[in-house]
């Protein structure tokens, strides 16, 4: 009888302990949203001009390219991998686009077909990264970083010297146009978000993303082709990078390779700050949307406050560390690499 009580006691404590961890997880899951609201509140109070229609439009405009890229990265990070090819691959997409549409450097004028060609080509490169990663059993960060370097090289080679000035009128419309007050580029990013959301929640592909990130063995034992899913993930990520690169060219109006520089890190930050775990299996595209808003608002607010660019970068780094610290689970004694 005595031991039976002992068992109940431990079983009870065990379930209490699990319940405590669950409560904490739920709190942590809502953290990004809380951080977002707190940030909006603080910025509205301290930064003059933050809480205005004009500034919201600015934020939405600043958000667009990063959001597109983070939609690709979310899936990659959900399966526990990483894609660092954004800089080179995005730059490549922008540079080649500028050479295929009406421009000041050559006589090409493929218009919309040029854009489609670029995005398909970049997606194929994503498939290549994925295949090298799964078949060559090489770490994804290594493969994608190398691909980034290679493609940055190709991008510079493509325009030999001066990058092309884009003269395609459609691009001007895209970069300056708005629809119900929201920039067209932002609408594009919202469409990408919706596609990603549907992929994540309404297809088996989406289901497998979480499962692979959580425990690959279970997925393998269920008889699912994990390699294929992973290649698809890298293809999707490259698709988003390609689109982001084209959007960059639209915004700058030139096919310079630097389009990609400085967008990968903020996009990864957006994903992580939003609560998608770098070890995979937890989070999703809604989290990344919140994360992208947080990162953009920090940026925007600091500019409004007139903080110098150098200090801006430092403050941004500090706020990001703070936000990640609040939104990850520290309880688990895992090895953090």
């Amino acid at each position, binding site marked *: 009888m005595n*031991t*039976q009580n*002992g*068992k*109940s*006691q*431990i*079983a*009870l*404590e*065990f*379930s*209490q*302990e*699990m*319940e405590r961890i*669950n409560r904490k*997880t739920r709190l942590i899951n809502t953290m990004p949203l809380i951080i977002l609201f707190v940030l909006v509140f603080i910025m509205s109070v301290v930064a003059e001009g933050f809480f205005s229609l004009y500034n919201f439009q600015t934020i939405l405009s600043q958000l667009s390219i990063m959001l597109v890229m983070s939609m690709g990265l979310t899936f990659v990070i959900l399966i526990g991998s990483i894609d660092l090819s954004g800089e080179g691959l995005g730059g490549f997409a922008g540079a080649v686009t500028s050479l295929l549409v009406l421009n000041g450097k050559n006589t090409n004028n493929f218009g919309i077909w040029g854009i489609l060609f670029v995005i398909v080509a970049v997606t194929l490169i994503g498939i290549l990264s994925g295949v090298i990663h799964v078949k060559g059993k090489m770490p994804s960060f290594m493969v994608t970083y190398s691909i980034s370097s290679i493609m940055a090289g190709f991008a510079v080679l493509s325009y030999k010297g001066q990058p092309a000035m884009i003269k395609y009128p459609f691009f001007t419309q895209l970069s300056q146009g708005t629809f119900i007050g929201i920039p067209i580029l932002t609408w594009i990013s919202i469409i990408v978000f919706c596609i990603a959301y*549907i992929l994540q*929640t*309404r*297809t*088996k592909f989406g*289901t497998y993303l*979480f*499962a692979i990130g*959580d*425990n690959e063995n*279970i*997925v393998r*034992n*269920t*008889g*699912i082709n994990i390699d294929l899913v992973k290649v698809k993930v890298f293809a999707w990520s490259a698709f988003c990078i390609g689109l982001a690169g084209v959007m960059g060219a639209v915004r700058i109006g030139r096919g310079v390779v630097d389009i990609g520089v400085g967008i990968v890190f903020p996009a990864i930050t957006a994903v992580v700050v939003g609560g998608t775990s770098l070890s995979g*299996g*937890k989070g999703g595209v809604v989290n990344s949307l919140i994360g992208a808003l947080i990162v953009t608002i920090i940026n925007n607010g600091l500019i409004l406050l007139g903080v110098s660019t150098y200090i801006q970068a430092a403050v941004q780094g500090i706020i990001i560390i703070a936000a990640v610290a609040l939104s990850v689970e520290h309880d688990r*004694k895992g090895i953090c690499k």
Partner: protein
Amino acid sequence: MQKENILTINGLTKQYPGTLALSDVSININKGEIIGLVGENGAGKSTLLKLIMGLEQPTKGDMQIYGKKYNPKTPLEANKNGIGMVFQEQSLIQNLSVSENIFFGREDSYSKFGFVNKNKMNKDAEEVLSQVNVSGIKTSKKVFNYDFATRQMIEIAKVFYVSQREDEKNSIILLDEPTSVLSEDEVKLLFKNIKKFVAKGDSVIFVSHRLDEVLEISDRIYVFKDGQNVCELNKENANENILYEKMVGKTASGEYYKLNRQVTPSKKELMKIEKLGLKGYFNDISFSLHEGEVIGICGVIGSGKEELCEVICGDKIPTSGTIKIHGEEKVSKEPYQSLRNGILSIPKERREEAIIPDNTISENISMSNYSKIKLNGFISKKKEDEQAQTFMEELNIKAPSIFQKVSNLSGGNAQKVVFARILASDAPILLLNHPTRGVDIGAKEEIYSLIRDLSEQNKGIIVIGDTLDESIGLSSKILVMKDGTLTHEFDAPSDNKPEQLDIVKYMM
């Protein structure tokens, strides 16, 4: 009445390097039967389940299901043959919904143009769950929202669903320690469900350390010992005492454990553990460790002994109680702190936790005691190598040189390298977690001598033995744990060792 036979196992054997995990096991499973499997840790129950599920391949022997040859290579193949297993560690994906988990890998039957019909899936999942009498679960909610017991019922429902045969013949479900963290009411619900399954003609293999539960639910019981199936009992012939007797392993000679060298512990206290607890794992553990003493901790998996060791060596932080070393209270949040406090542990998984396989013998030995081989702030390679050379001879480590990578050594020799590291350090308290795991008999004896050496040097040792016999043979005191509490304490002087049977009674 002869019942229809579903699964026949003939002479199944599994040989791992260094250990025979399963030896010539033959059992039958009939339609609508509940089979209990009992045995000590390492008796071969888990290995048998792994072979039936296709997680491991047998070295010898074969299986037949419904008279057809059955040789699964993957769990998926086992499922298709109507065999499913509920693992001790839950295998649900936390961040997927209940229905996504249940129909995981089978989404195609709910897909149209690539889009999954989640509504229909959620409805059907309710249907699957109703088979196990679980209600009040929202199948669209993510799994992590539910408590452990509910998750287990979800998993059982899933396993039943995935192991349905296409020809609609009956299935067999393997349950590995399903009750270890369930409360009494939850166990009752589980048993009710199990009985419902077998009433439909399905069969269940129930593995548990809880003999009372096995006796309550099983129609037939197989007892395992040292990788062998030592006896088969019908429900009416079985009781706890018979099971205890059949389960306990062979007793080795006193010479094997070097009993003549067992040290009578001194009165000098090294470590005092008071009311130590880790919420959800163990409670209220108190004992003292003296110089020269070897304390063996016995208990089944889930008794809390592993977690107790993790707390003592600083890998987990206790939620209550204190650890005093030389009368002073010490708190360790990380293993390096407990090493500083004088506690060194040999972890259970040598390859993963104790050695750096690609480093040399010499480097592996010096790892926990760089201060001894320092010269002007740098590591003196000369001192490091001299130290290794000494230990290599002293411990009879069989290797071409001290520059051999540890990954090239046999289990026994690798373990001796780990012991050399202990000997090189000055830690007065040693925690040996399965010190002879995966080690051949010759090396085992050498390790036993080493343990005697260490206790002659007045070190205090806590040991979790690979077998009960080993714990008894080595220890001068034995602590028995069950359900997270200390159930009994045995003195084990060299001339009056307790019987395995007596200890087992407090374990299960």
